[in-house]
Structures are given as C-alpha cells and as structure tokens.
C-alpha cells in the first residue's frame, strides 16, 4: 500500500514544476468538464437524472447493512461464494488463500481501486503469486511503480517515450515488435501509442489464454439479484471475468445498490461523469459462476466484501456521506487545486477532492492535515458530484476534529480564543484594530506591505498587501452618520 500523504507539499511543489504534468492537467481541466457536460445533456432532463442518481446513492448508503445482507443471500443463491473481510489484511489473505489452494502461479487483474487501497498486488507478489494488471493505464503505473495520477486514467500523463522505455525494459515490446516486424506491421521499436497499445494487448492476450485466476473490482453490486457489474472501455475486465476458471471479485461495502434499475441508472451516470460517454464500451454483469449448459464464464466465483474502515465511517453519521462516492473522478477534473498539482501529492489510491474526503477517514485525521487543508472551499466539487457529496462541509468537519483533538500548539489555540473574545466585543475589537494598525503598517512602504515574517509569510510570496488605512469603517461611520444627520436637519 502506497501511503505518502505526509509528503503532500513536497510532491505538489515538484509536480507544479513538471511541464508535462502541467500541460496534461490544463488539457484535462479544460476538456473533461465539457465532455461531461455534453454527456449529461444527452439525458432528456439532465437535472432530474442527476437528482435521481443522488437519491439512489443516498438510499443505498442509508440502507447499506440490509442491502449487503440481501446481496450476499442472492449472490450465494446464484452460486457465488461471499467472503467478508474486516480489513486490508483479511482481504489480501483471502485472495492469497484462494490462489494458493489452486496452485496459481499468476493472476491478471482488472482495474480496482479497493485493491490499490489494500495493497493486494504487493501482498500476492511477496507470496509468490505474480500479478499482471490488465487495464493499460494500470499496466503502466504498475511497471513504473507509481500511484495513479488520475482515478480514471492512472497513466494519462505518462508520455509514449517513457512507456516505450519501460515496455522495452520489461520485455513487453521485444516479443510483440518481433511479431509486428515479421508481419511487416512495423519496422522498428516504436513510440507510436497505437503500436504500444497493441504490444500490451498481445502481451496480455497470452496471459489471458492460460489464465487460471482473474481478479476484478466491482462498480455496482445489485442487492435484489446478487449481480456484480463492471463498466470499462478496454474490454480487459471482461477478459478477466470470462477467461479463468476462478474469478475473484473484490468490492468495498458501499458498492451495493438496491435494484437492477438503480444499477443501470448509476452506470449511465457513472459513464457520463467519468468520460462523458452515455455508456462505457463494455458493461459486464455476472450473476454467479458458469451454470450447466452455459458456454463461458468462470467455474467458481468468489466475491470478497471489504470493510477496511467503512463500517466505522457508516456509524459516524456526520461523515457517512463519503460512502456515496462512485469513483467517477468528476471532482478531480473540476478541482482548481487538483488541476494544479495532479494526483501524486495526495499520496494514496484516491486523489483530488475524493481523496481529500476519503483518505483522512481511512488513514486517520492526525496524519492527513494537508489533505483537508489544501482547499479553498470553493465548492466546485460539491456542485459537480453526481453522488451528492458535500465535500467542503466534510473538510470543515475534519478540520474541527483535528483542532478538537487537543494536541494543537498552545499558542495557536490561545490566539484563536483571544480572537474570538475580541470578536464577541465591539470595544475590544476596536482596541485590537487600533493596536494592529501601527504593528502592521511598520512593514509598509509607499502604502503597501511587501513582506512580513512568520505566519503571514506565505501571503507575500506572490502578493502585496495594502497598508491598513488611517481609519476603519467604524471610525469613518461616525463622520458619515454625522454628515447624513446634518443633511437631514438641513432639509
């Protein structure tokens, strides 16, 4: 499990210097919201469709415990085996056990955020089961050993040259380019994205051909039918689901939705918010393993339902709504902070506003302060969220919990308390203003302050501050009031 949330500032600073990240982020922040807009406007009534989606997420989370039980019952009735995992360790151990019992040497994986959260790949590899990601972006990030840059496109920022290098190093290009060379498709090792994509396909197709066990995530788990649904554009998840004898689907608690109708609406909402499509290229639904007479599908299906802190979040009513998140990434594309720093600084599987609300609850308030403070509370994420999450309010709640922990610097707390006492008294406030003026203005030159030490320093990195005027409004009011009273008298 990657976890570098403590390096937020350092990595943010590095990424802002990275021309490539900057160019990509600019493109993303300009293009993605438009794509989403076009996608949403294809609903006959976009506002209603959005409200309906939010209502489904609200209901799914409020009824989560009973829905999960219903899902378990129906999934098992259709032949799937449901395993509950309390935390990352239990989830990883369950997958490893299934693999070991079947003498599996390698698995392929569909894109799954929850397994990034639990660190499943590392666990399997350490224990002798090789893991091949099969989403092209994940293939690249896995090889580069990086976090996802964006939840939807984890390697969208990596240029073809870098991908070509890593493919050569890992032996992915050599074999397929040989084939392409023999067939006369290409003349030499390439940086052409289409050729690289084809090389990855050929490489993975070999893995799928002999696949014994596949691992996928889950986008929606339908309580009324016990069906797991995946949406994707590359077709690799369907390969993962249909090629092997053994399929392991891993989902976190909040993926459950009440009905198939709800799931289909959420698939339409998710697609539009992810990529602006009406529906992704592939949508696969599995209700249990292959049944007698069916021609394909896995012989056995395990569904691992991972808690990893969710039930605690569910019980914590003030933050429960973070479970509504459908991982569409719309908030990343609209966030003015994410679009400056990209996904790496958030230091964990989830980045952008989504990461800012989820990571502190998974990793703890104490170590994630930069995540819930690096926000101007502009509300763009809340506005766009198809799940109806109020991100700014959650960040404010985390800030309050941090300050409430009692281990804040004494000086800071005393300053806050002193300020609040002044705010509760007009006369103290006036005295404060009178004292502040000479202090503040001692830094001024030609009517402007260009620099100040200590806490205020950050302001002056790129900005000036006008010196404090000779009179506050309160002081000017006395004259205003007097002159208007005079005017009235004179009338």
């Amino acid at each position: 499990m990657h976890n570098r949330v403590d390096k937020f500032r350092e990595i943010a600073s590095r990424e802002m210097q990275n021309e490539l990240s900057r160019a990509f982020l600019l493109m993303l922040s300009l293009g993605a919201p438009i794509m989403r807009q076009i996608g949403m406007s294809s609903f006959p009534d976009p506002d209603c469709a959005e409200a309906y989606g939010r209502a489904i997420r609200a209901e799914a989370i409020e009824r989560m415990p009973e829905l999960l039980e219903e899902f378990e019952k129906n999934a098992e009735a259709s032949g799937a085996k449901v395993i509950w995992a309390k935390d990352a360790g239990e989830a990883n151990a369950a997958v490893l056990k299934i693999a070991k019992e079947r003498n599996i040497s390698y698995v392929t994986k569909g894109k799954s955020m929850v397994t990034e959260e639990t660190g499943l790949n590392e666990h399997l590899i350490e224990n002798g089961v090789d893991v091949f990601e099969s989403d092209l972006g994940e293939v690249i990030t896995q090889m580069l050993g990086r976090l996802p840059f964006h939840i939807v496109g984890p390697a969208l920022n990596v240029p073809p040259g870098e991908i070509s290098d890593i493919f050569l190093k890992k032996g992915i290009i050599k074999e397929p380019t040989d084939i392409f060379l023999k067939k006369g498709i290409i003349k030499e090792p390439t940086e052409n994205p289409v050729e690289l994509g084809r090389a990855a396909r050929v490489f993975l197709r070999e893995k799928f051909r002999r696949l014994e066990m596949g691992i996928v995530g889950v986008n929606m788990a339908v309580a009324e039918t016990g069906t797991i649904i995946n949406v994707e554009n590359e077709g690799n998840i369907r390969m993962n689901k249909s090629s092997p004898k053994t399929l392991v689907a891993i989902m976190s608690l909040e993926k459950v939705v009440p009905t198939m109708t709800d799931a289909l609406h959420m698939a339409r909402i998710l697609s539009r918010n992810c990529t602006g499509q009406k529906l992704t290229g592939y949508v696969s639904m599995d209700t249990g393993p292959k049944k007698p007479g069916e021609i394909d599908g896995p012989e056995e299906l395990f569904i691992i339902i991972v808690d990893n802190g969710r039930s605690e979040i569910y019980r914590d009513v003030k933050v429960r709504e973070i479970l509504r998140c459908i991982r569409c990434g719309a908030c990343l594309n609209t966030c003015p902070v994410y679009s400056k720093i990209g996904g790496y600084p958030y230091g964990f599987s989830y980045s952008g506003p989504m990461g800012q609300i989820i990571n502190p609850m998974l990793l703890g308030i104490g170590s994630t302060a930069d995540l819930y403070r690096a926000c101007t509370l502009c509300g763009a994420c809340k506005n766009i969220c198809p799940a109806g999450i109020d991100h700014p309010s959650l960040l404010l709640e985390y800030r309050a919990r941090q300050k409430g922990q009692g281990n804040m610097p004494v000086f800071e707390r005393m300053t806050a308390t002193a300020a609040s006492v002044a705010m509760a008294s007009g006369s103290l406030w006036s005295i404060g203003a009178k004292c502040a003026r000479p202090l503040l203005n001692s830094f001024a030159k030609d009517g402007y302050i260009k620099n100040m030490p200590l806490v205020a320093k950050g302001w002056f990195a790129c900005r000036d501050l006008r010196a404090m005027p000779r009179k506050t409004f309160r002081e000017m009011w006395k004259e205003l009031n007097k002159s208007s009273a005079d005017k009235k008298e004179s009338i």
Partner: protein
Amino acid sequence: MKVSLFIPCTVDLMMPEIGVAVYKLLSRLGAEPVYHANQTCCGQPLYNAGYREQAKRAAKHFIEVFGEDDIIVSPSGSCVSMVKHHYPELLCDETSWYNRAFELSGRIFEFSQFVVDILCVTDVGASFSGKVTYHESCHIYRALGISHHPKKLIAAVKGTQLVEMSNATACCGFGGEFSVGFPEISEAMVKDKAENFLNTGADVLVLNEPGCLLNINGYLHRNYPQKRAMHLASFLYENSVEVNHA
C-alpha cells in the same frame, strides 16, 4: 426601508471605502442604512480553521448585534454564506440559539442581490466608458447562487461594455488560510485569474467579494501594477454621476 449594514472585518480594517460606497449607494437608492458600531467579524476564519467553539462565540455576538434587524446587507457573499448556512449548523445543539440563527438566515442579503431583488434597481445612475469583466466569486456564485445580479448592475452602467472572462467561475486561490498555508498552489491559481483578466482586455475587473479582492489586487499590485480589481460597490459609487459632478 431601514437596512442594517454588516461590514465584514476585511472591509472594516483594510478597505473601508467599500463600506462607504455601500452606505452612499443604498442611501441614494432610498434605503436607510444603519450601522451597529459593536459589530465585529462573522467568525468564518475561526470556523474554517476548525475552531468551532471559538467561532460560536463570534456567531452568538453577531446574533445579539443583528438579531432584531429586519434586513441585513453585506458587501461579502462569503460572510453572508457563513451567517446563512453555517450559523444554524454551528449552533444546532443549542435550541434557542439555533432558532435565532435559523430565523436570521432569511434576513441577510448580499449587496448586489439586495439592490436587484429587494430594491428592484439595476441602473444606479453610474457611467463608465470602458470595458469591464466580472469574477464570479465561489461563495457568491456557488454558495449563494448569485450571478446575474451583479452582472445586471454592471451592464446598466452607461458606457460600460461587460465582457466575459474565461474561467470566470474558477476560484481565485484565496481561501483564507489557504492563501497563506499553500502559497505555491494559491499563486498558480491567482496567476490564472490575473491572466484571464488581462486576456479580456478589460480596463477593470469587478467583483463583490472582499477576500478575492485582497488576493487578486495583491497579486496585480505585485505583478501588473497598472491593472486593478474593484469591488462592485466601489465601481458603481466611484463612477456615479453624482460623485463625478461633485
């Protein structure tokens, strides 16, 4: 109509001329502005920092000061949003305070909203020959849903051409403690805002949020000293016919 002015601390301490402009404009438009001299700050900086108990103290003072007023008007959407949305939330465990906060939340208005919706005025009698662009401040645009009010007021100024700025609704990077705590990210954001403003070719950037104004003007003064942003109230007042003829 008696109108109680809530002059935010940033205006009171750093930009009192905005308060004067609001006072003068409202008086001219037939309202009777009053000012309670014992008002202070809405407590938002404390609330945003996470100091809720301390913020409550400021909130209660505000409610004591303004509790009896029929209409409260403020030249800051952010402070209005604090009172309107966050006071009831902050005081939800103390029934009598909650009731007062909830009741107050319906009586507080952002300046441009008050002028357009309550006074039913769009032409305040100002003229300015030049190009103007408008920044949609986050808490005005998203938290209060106010956007056409200020634009109507600007468009009604004689001789003024209102041009749209690209990414007008994007945050300017202020965010209170954010601007001090994350200076690098904040700079990247305010730089975009300034460049979008410059690209419009407008003579002045008008907005109605004191926080954004401090931020954007601070950046412009450092980097493009010939350019400036103005509060809507100042823009309307300083360019009003009456002032220019005096």
